[in-house]
């Protein structure tokens, strides 16, 4: 009788194994959820890096050539000296910002070192009054949801004619 039982598996053992397997699966799932997608994280970090680089150029660099205009600009830069933005350069930048003009769009992308990323620059006073809202990638209103969810945003503080302003760069 005892020998007959040797090849059989007890019901408690089966339950235990099933429980073990199901809890293991749940545990692995739980652990996976602790970590963000590495690929997505790398992408976001790269975008933040680009946004930060552009923001540095905008508030600390005078651009190249120093007295650039939309025809000769090689590198974007809006300041006269670091943290002091130049109103003439801001005006020129504003004029260049036409998403439906292919030449302007390419000029901005080339001068800021971007390829084909979604890209928005907002310059405004701290009370919210807008100075420049530039979206070379397309209509900013249409992309507002995309802006909110998918982009890396870097906000910098600088001064323009004695007033404190904020420069926001979105790259997505």
């Amino acid at each position: 009788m005892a020998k007959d039982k040797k090849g059989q598996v007890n019901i408690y053992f089966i339950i235990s194994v099933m429980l073990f397997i199901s809890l293991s699966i749940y545990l692995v799932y739980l652990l996976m959820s602790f970590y963000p997608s590495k690929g997505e994280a790398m992408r976001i970090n790269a975008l933040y890096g680009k946004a930060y680089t552009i923001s540095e150029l905008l508030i600390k660099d005078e651009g190249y050539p120093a007295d650039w205009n939309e025809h000769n600009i090689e590198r974007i830069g809006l300041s006269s000296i670091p943290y002091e933005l130049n109103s003439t350069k801001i005006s020129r930048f504003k004029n260049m910002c036409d998403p439906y003009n292919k030449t302007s769009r390419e000029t901005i992308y080339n001068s800021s070192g971007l390829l084909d990323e979604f890209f928005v620059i907002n310059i405004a006073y701290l009370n919210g009054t807008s100075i420049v809202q530039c979206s070379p990638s397309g209509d900013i209103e249409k992309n507002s949801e995309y802006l909110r969810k998918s982009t890396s945003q870097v906000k910098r503080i600088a001064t323009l004619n004695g007033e404190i302003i904020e420069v926001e760069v979105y790259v997505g």
Partner: protein
Amino acid sequence: MLDNNMGKMGRGFIRVFEVVLFTFLLFGILIPSFFRYYDPNDWASAKNKMAAQDMLFTIEKNQTFDNIFIPDYWQSGTNRATLQEKNTESLRNNTERVFPASYDFEYEIKNVPPSRISIGCLCNESDIAWLTSKILTPSYTTSEFSITPVTPNNFSDSFDTFVIFGKQNLEPYKSSITSMLQLGKGFVLIANLSSEPDNMTKEIFGINYTGGSNANVNFQFMDMMDPATNGLSKRYTENLIRIYTLEPNLKGKLHIKGNIYNISQSPDNNCVNISSCPSCLHENQSCLISGVANLTLYQIDPLYAGWIDIKISSVSSNSRNYTFSDYVPRSVAIGKSTVLSDGTSAIANAALGGYSISYETEPRRFWIYQYDSSQDDLNLMLKTGIMWSSGEHFFLFKKAIPDKRIVATHFYTGLNGNNIPFSVSLYAWGY
């Protein structure tokens, strides 16, 4: 017999089931402790730190702190304290907009005297009256002084600094004085040391008593490389001698180096005549009195009629190397704390360090002999010593800063080009 064996076997499996269940439950509970996810690219924190750093650079460009600490009140015609408050409020509003709405912040200032200095005075009513009228007048960055009589038994941490008049035995009050020093509170002693002081007095003010006679001497700042001497001499040339010109003729007197100079305002020309100066001085104009001093008219006070403010500096190439002249006791040897000396003895000491392990709460102590109180240049030295002893370290909004916060620090070259460097740390915290 067989059923018994089966029963034992079943009990064994139930134990396995229980152990598996228990292990998983335990493991599930401990998961958060085992796996603490940390993102090395914490952009939320980095962005706030970047905003703080940008803000400090930006307010340097905007000269925000110049407007807060040395407001242009004679131009705007507004009370200085009101203008300081208004400019501080503007900084608060701007900083609020820089950080997320759920963030709070605080500015920590080092090496600038606060706008208001609170003084506990171990002295009598006449000393307080003299201090109030001649010494504690609005000056470089500090617009308001409050002075309260104290006894050594009731020193309180509500004061920034303590002023002690005359030679006193401080030894019995060692513990209360030490507790104040450990909190970074300053001490100023105005006393002639004609006999040996107690050990506590010697220790606090770095006094090396030798005894000696009085003499008429010239004396000046010694060792400008010393941090205390350097700091005091720079502040001396930035502080203001406040002179009242009596109405209706608007005439007053300036006492420096034992000389008396007549002063008269010329309201029609908006200038001030000083005897020995070749022309009527307008604001920010200087006059060099050969061998004595370089005088600069800082302002004719637009708010308080009759008052004028003068800056004083040396006639030598180094404007901070001012030479004083007086009848002084020569009873203290030159030591590492000596700031004013005639070359053989110490005339004033400024002691730093000790008592506190933190630079932030390092107490500053200043001793000067009981000089001729009619001398405006020496009164300015005492004023400078009192302001310096206040610690020059304060928080702008007086908020409690939590341990978990971000901080950015920026060094500024000075206020209104005075070349007295100071640092500002901007703390921010929230979620």
